[in-house]
């Protein structure tokens, strides 16, 4: 046999000997994740990595319902102060440690007590957690809190191996051990995070990827170029301005979904001298400002039709949206009348905005829109850390900041608008709103909750401590070879069911 004939024969023998094609998925992220410990981590991209690495007690479905993951069923007690969960049997952590009620107790207590934990506020309502039997666990709460389930569907509910956590302590993030479909291989800061398929995963029949690599590439143009060059299979947070070119590319597919977060303008209504201005002191002036914005147009221009105009912390598509307050049309005459009624002709405003091009473009549009009603806005651009500092200290007049969103409505409103809440940068305080939003947390009945949020919304639409302008979409671009990806409004990348053709 000639070599020329022998070679292809040899190659095909080798190929036949390895029928299982090792599918590797390379995902481009906008930033690098921070510490990879669910108890300590803060970043959005960190959460994306966890969806592959760490299973949670419960998960979120694309229509934002709580669905089973490591817990198969759960019940609230009648007074709403006890949550009992049945756990999935036969689950193992990546180091072989069995998953059971004891592990849940250890992990929840770890998140509640580890000094470095960022999960304490999410688990504040938990008084104690106990193992009822090997596969049943009971949470006892100090106050009824139905939002606990949503917390358990995120980092607070991620289960890490107690063996590894005990050994590594606060350094767990250097070599995380969880029970998700993929296990940790290596990480090089600002370069890559590599995971490989966990052979003992409880749902392994639905995992078709063998290796996942996450690469942080902050520049959106470069991220897209990498996808086009075939160096990446999938990218998150595609720039809205690139949406059309991706849709028309035969090698790429486009996925998007309006998220649960919002784009917000904060008015400082607190006690700081900076709040002592017409906007901080008079709600009519704030109402005028809000009315002068053409939300639909601004969203269309900046996000090229990918985002959704809004006026509440819940998007118009959300079941929690109060349809009594639809997205208002721009009304310059009414805005002017309100200003006049408040005794102003022109109002100077200093507005803080982060120095990223998209946020700046949005605010320049708002600046020119409200100018027609009588607001002389000067934009003060700073980088994000400085903005955060000034806004949380309350030393600003008006500020623009966004929220990445939570699946439970409470997570998108309570911590921003109740007195002295951690993220209440408007420094707004209204006991009536506090009461309603606290009650909104307590009833397991969604109809009751909706009513509380609607009542709060009526007050907030009148007081306007913040004005909501829209809801950004999560946009992904994928190589056509990748199939089975289902976009979820939380912006995560779930790899169960995702396939890559060779």
């Amino acid at each position: 046999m000639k070599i020329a004939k022998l070679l292809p024969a040899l190659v095909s023998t080798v190929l036949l000997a390895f029928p299982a094609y090792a599918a590797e998925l390379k995902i481009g992220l906008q930033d690098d994740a921070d510490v990879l410990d669910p108890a300590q981590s803060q970043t959005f991209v960190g959460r994306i990595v966890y969806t592959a690495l760490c299973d949670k007690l419960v998960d979120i479905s694309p229509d934002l319902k709580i669905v089973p993951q490591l817990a198969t069923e759960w019940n609230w007690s009648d007074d709403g102060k006890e949550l009992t969960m049945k756990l999935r049997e036969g689950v193992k952590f990546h180091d072989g440690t069995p998953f059971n009620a004891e592990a849940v107790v250890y992990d929840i207590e770890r998140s509640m007590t580890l000094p470095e934990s960022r999960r304490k506020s999410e688990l504040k309502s938990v008084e104690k957690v106990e193992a009822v039997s090997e596969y049943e666990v009971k949470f006892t709460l100090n106050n009824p809190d139905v939002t606990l389930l949503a917390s358990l569907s995120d980092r607070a509910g991620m289960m890490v191996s107690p063996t590894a956590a005990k050994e590594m302590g606060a350094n767990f993030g250097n070599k995380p051990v969880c029970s998700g479909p993929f296990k940790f291989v290596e990480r090089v800061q600002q370069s890559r995070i590599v995971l490989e398929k966990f052979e003992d995963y409880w749902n392994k029949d639905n995992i078709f990827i063998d290796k996942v690599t996450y690469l942080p590439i902050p520049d959106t143009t470069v991220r897209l170029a990498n996808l086009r060059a075939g160096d990446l299979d999938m990218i998150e947070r595609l720039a809205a301005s690139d949406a059309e070119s991706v849709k028309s590319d035969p090698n790429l597919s486009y996925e998007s979904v309006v998220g649960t977060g919002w784009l917000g303008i904060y008015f400082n209504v607190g006690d700081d001298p900076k709040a002592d201005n017409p906007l901080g002191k008079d709600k009519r002036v704030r109402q005028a400002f809000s009315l002068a914005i053409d939300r639909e147009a601004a969203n269309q221009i900046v996000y090229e039709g990918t985002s959704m105009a809004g006026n509440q912390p819940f998007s118009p598509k959300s079941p929690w949206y109060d349809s009594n307050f639809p997205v208002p049309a721009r009304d310059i005459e009414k805005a002017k009348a309100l200003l006049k009624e408040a005794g102003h002709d022109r109002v100077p405003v200093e507005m803080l905005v982060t120095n990223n091009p998209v946020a700046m473009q949005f605010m320049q549009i708002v600046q020119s829109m409200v100018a027609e009603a009588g607001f002389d806005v000067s934009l003060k651009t700073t980088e994000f850390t400085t903005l955060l500092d000034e806004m949380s200290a309350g030393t600003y007049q008006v500020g623009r900041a966004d929220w990445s969103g939570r699946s439970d409505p409470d997570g998108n409103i309570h911590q921003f608008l109740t007195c002295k809440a951690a993220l209440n940068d408007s420094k707004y305080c209204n006991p009536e709103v506090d009461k309603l939003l606290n009650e909104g947390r307590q009833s397991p009945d969604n109809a009751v909750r909706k009513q509380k949020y609607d009542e709060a919304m009526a007050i907030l639409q009148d007081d306007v401590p913040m004005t909501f302008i829209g809801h950004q979409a999560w946009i992904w671009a994928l190589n056509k070879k990748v199939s089975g990806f289902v976009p979820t409004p939380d912006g995560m990348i779930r790899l169960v069911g995702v396939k890559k053709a060779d």
Partner: protein
Amino acid sequence: MFSYIVKRLLVAIPTLLIISVFVFSLQKLLPGDPVLAMAGEERDPQLIEYLREKYRLNDPVPIQYIHWLGSAVQGDLGMSLRTNQPVLTLVAQKLPVTVQLAIMSMLFAFAIGIPMGILAAVKKNTALDYVANVVALSGLSIPNFWLGIMLILLVSVHLGWLPASGYRPFFEDPLNSIKTMLMPAFVLGNALAATLMRHTRSAMVSVLSADYIRTARAKGLAERSVVLEHSFRNAVLPIVTLSALLFGELLAGAVLTEQIFTIPGFGKLIVDAVFTRDYAVVQGVVLCTAVGFILMNLVADVLYVVLNPRMRASL
């Protein structure tokens, strides 16, 4: 020679101290609170207080500095606020990457800049000289980020010759490591080549007009030998100084180029650290960069002595 090197190293110590004080104080002047940046979307006051205590951010700035210095002289550069890793580990991860990129960029710069400089000097005031000048000038004027993105579009997206990103460590996968570094090294090297070409040209022009060159030509030496052996060897000194300085600059990291090609080097590390007010990381990276710069200067001075026998007497 040895005592000269030791002396030079000792002189470097006060320089480093001054740099560290300077960087430390500058950072504290920046607005923004590192702990708030760390706490992210869940700002729990108890946690914020704990972190402030843990990282000694409540102490007066001079005390913080003395504390930092005390650990630094023992080889402990502190912990990153953001990722909880020792700064030394981060530096050790990035340093080889930055050094590799710097070396490859310098190779490009030498390969383009020096021959072009020599050619321009030899063919002074001819069309070739002008062409070399225009090429050099455009190399200097084209912004790195633009050239980088254009290269990705051309070489990676259209031609598919080189990967656009996905850096591999040199010792793990040498071939792919060099492949992923070719484009960024070219982008950086291209800009440096222009400077190098201008300096080579002017040094060569002045040497070529010296008396001994005329003598060499009068002796009937081949032009090749006159240019490369007699002239270039004498023109090389300013080029060595310049190269050492350029290399030192490269060691500080090339922020935009690293960002575009996702090379995990110093540039990206320090920019991220500044934005999240990760003080210990900024401090550690600046210190290492300064040490690198000082060492490069020293290398240049030592090379002088090696290359120029007349200078040995002055030591």
